[in-house]
């Protein structure tokens, strides 16, 4: 049997690198922009206008026109081709927006308004509060769920803790990813982004449950076999399922990302990246962690294993 567990140190190293890069991005973002993540107008309040012009527009000129109109805190971002822009600034009334658009049209010619959103400060605060509540509720719910799902296993506590640590692993990774994309591509954390994260967490518990489920079943069926061998066997047995499921989910998500509307592209990318990392961390982070704990070599995680176990 192929020994997946033997390369445990490599997996932990990969996880450490993934999380480390994210952490560095968050520190850089805090120093450069004042926040670890670039928050969207859903939370911070502000307005967003998406316009499509006939010809390519110059972002600098556009910024100058908008600033002159009294919106000094404006960011202009080109999306799609060079003729489409997203303008972000403080909240404004629809009349003000029309006036601003008229100003821009005198310079750049007629435009099609694709989207206009304006979120007042009160709404921004409410959404932020609701988001924090949702995150806490999701965390608690998942904790309870894990406790419930492992009710019949010996050492259920360890399974639960490993699933929890894995959840934090995934959250940290996604936050890091959000931070990186904020710096590199100007992505903003909005309500949908948060939804993608919470959904991924939900699915992430499922993956870990499937593997852990198999481990607890194999423990019953193969008494006398070494623990690490059982874990290794369980991993290999569930690998097929993980890959098949992953492939199918990937089909749908890729289709939406490549063909689907631009409005939810970011949402889907977060979801997809989250799912890939979640599958990875279920198999190659949570399970080795559990095995290390059960084996009693928790303190030696990063040292070379003393004996080459599980080569059966």
């Amino acid at each position: 049997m192929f020994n997946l567990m033997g390369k445990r140190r490599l997996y932990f190293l990969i996880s450490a690198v993934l999380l480390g890069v994210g952490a560095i991005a968050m520190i850089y973002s805090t120093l450069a922009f004042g926040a670890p993540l670039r928050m969207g107008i859903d939370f911070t309040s502000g307005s967003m206008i998406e316009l499509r012009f006939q010809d390519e527009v110059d972002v600098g000129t556009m910024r100058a026109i908008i600033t002159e109109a009294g919106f000094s805190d404006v960011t202009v971002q080109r999306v799609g081709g060079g003729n489409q822009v997203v303008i972000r600034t403080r909240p404004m009334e629809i009349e003000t927006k029309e006036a601003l658009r008229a100003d821009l049209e005198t310079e750049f010619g007629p435009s099609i308004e694709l989207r206009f959103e304006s979120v007042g400060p009160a709404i921004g605060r409410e959404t932020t509060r609701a988001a924090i509540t949702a995150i806490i509720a999701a965390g608690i719910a998942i904790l309870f769920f894990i406790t419930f799902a492992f009710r019949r296993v010996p050492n259920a506590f360890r399974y639960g803790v490993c699933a929890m640590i894995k959840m934090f692993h995934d959250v940290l990774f996604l936050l890091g990813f959000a931070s990186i994309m904020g710096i590199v591509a100007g992505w903003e954390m909005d309500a949908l982004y948060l939804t993608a994260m919470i959904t991924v967490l939900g699915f992430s518990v499922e993956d870990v449950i499937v593997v852990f489920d198999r481990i607890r079943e194999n423990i019953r069926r193969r008494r006398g076999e070494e623990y690490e061998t059982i874990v290794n066997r369980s991993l290999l047995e569930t690998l097929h399922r993980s890959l098949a499921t992953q492939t199918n989910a990937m089909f749908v998500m890729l289709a939406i990302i490549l063909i689907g509307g631009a409005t939810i592209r970011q949402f889907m990318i977060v979801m997809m990246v989250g799912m890939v990392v979640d599958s990875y961390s279920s198999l190659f982070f949570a399970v080795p962690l559990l095995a290390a704990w059960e084996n009693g070599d928790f303190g030696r995680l990063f040292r070379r294993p003393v004996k080459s176990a599980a080569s059966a």
Partner: protein
Amino acid sequence: MRQRDIRLLVLIAIVTVLAAWVSWPNNPGIRLRLGGLTIDRDIETHLGLDLRGGMRVLLEADLPAQHEIDPESMRAARNIVESRVNALGVTEPVVQSVGTRRILVELPGIEDPEAAVATLKETGLMEWVDTGGEFLPPGTVIQTDYLIDLTDTDAVTPTEPIYHTVLTGAHLRTARVEFDQSGLPVIAFELNAEGADIFSQHTANNVGQFLSIVLDKVIISSPRISTAIPDGRGQITGQFSVDEARSIVLQLRYGALPIPLQVIDTQAIGPTLGEESIDRSVRAGIVGLAAILIFMLIYYRVPGLLADIALIIYALITLAILKLVPVTLTLPGIAGFLLSVGVAVDANILIFERMREELRQGNSLQRSIETGFQRAWTSIFDSNVSTWIICAILWVFGNTFGASMVKGFAITLALGVFVSMFTAVVVTRTFLRAAFALGGEKLDEKRWLLAV
């Protein structure tokens, strides 16, 4: 094949046909007449604003936060906003009270959002104001004593005179545009009984004085009372065009807002983006689904084919439920639906992987099928429950105004997972049993058909 499986097959067939009929794009709707009972219902997909274009605004009482708002006035304000919205002629508008001081308005497919918002926000407060012997020209902005307690008392400067409001639009019964002898538009109005009383008393006691007609604190005309008017009928003449006269009449008819409102949140999606989004999501959905169907067929062969059929049934049932409830479909909602397809095949994958293992261990085909379903059930159930919990949390989060697009996602995902429990488990199992009953030996001989 056992009796129970045959019955299940028939049931599945009926449900599928019904679901297909409901999901059919040009569904004629349900039109039934059974004695006294008539059902006349269209079955249509309800598209959200992000897919059809349109605008959502959140209006909030424009009063200091510490000011208690009378729920009765707020309800009245909501009704007035609703009638104004209806006058805009938009199909399927939404006007909803949110909390104690907010009104949510959704205007699908609105062409001129700017004008629409202006119409909604207009206070539309018509007053007949006693200005004594003073003639105030149209366009003058004045202060009146009507509802003075609503505004900040300290903001009133003594230098500006405050005029007495005799009557307000609340006393109006009807108003319409008419034309006088010279062909100029005038507004003819009729007061209700109480209004007529006040009007006749006031006009009788104040002959020769001015009684200005004021809209939203701006004078629109200042007629002089020439004689007492006992019947509560009158005319407003002024320098306005026919269009202006019409819009004043609309405001008078649909009433004045008892509470001033301000826009605190706007979302407008242009029709272009909506159309593009819907085309693209339909295409993405078809491509994604086709890829899954092909994958399952190649990877799991005969069971894969059966799972594919179950998956199509799943899609039909889910679409039918979305249409029947009806759930308003949004872009995140479509994403939720497509993701739930992933969840639905996941259940089948868990089962088939289990089956394969059992077969490889030398178990008989029939036993492998049954064990596969039995063993996989705990995992399927557990993981679906966790998805539901997450959906419930997201749904609550989506009820916050600023995160409303999250709601559609949570609903379609939860519904999809629910339906998939039926199709991926019951439907696929029945199909597999049927397939085994019809060609079990052949399947057992040609193991490649089972992808073992």
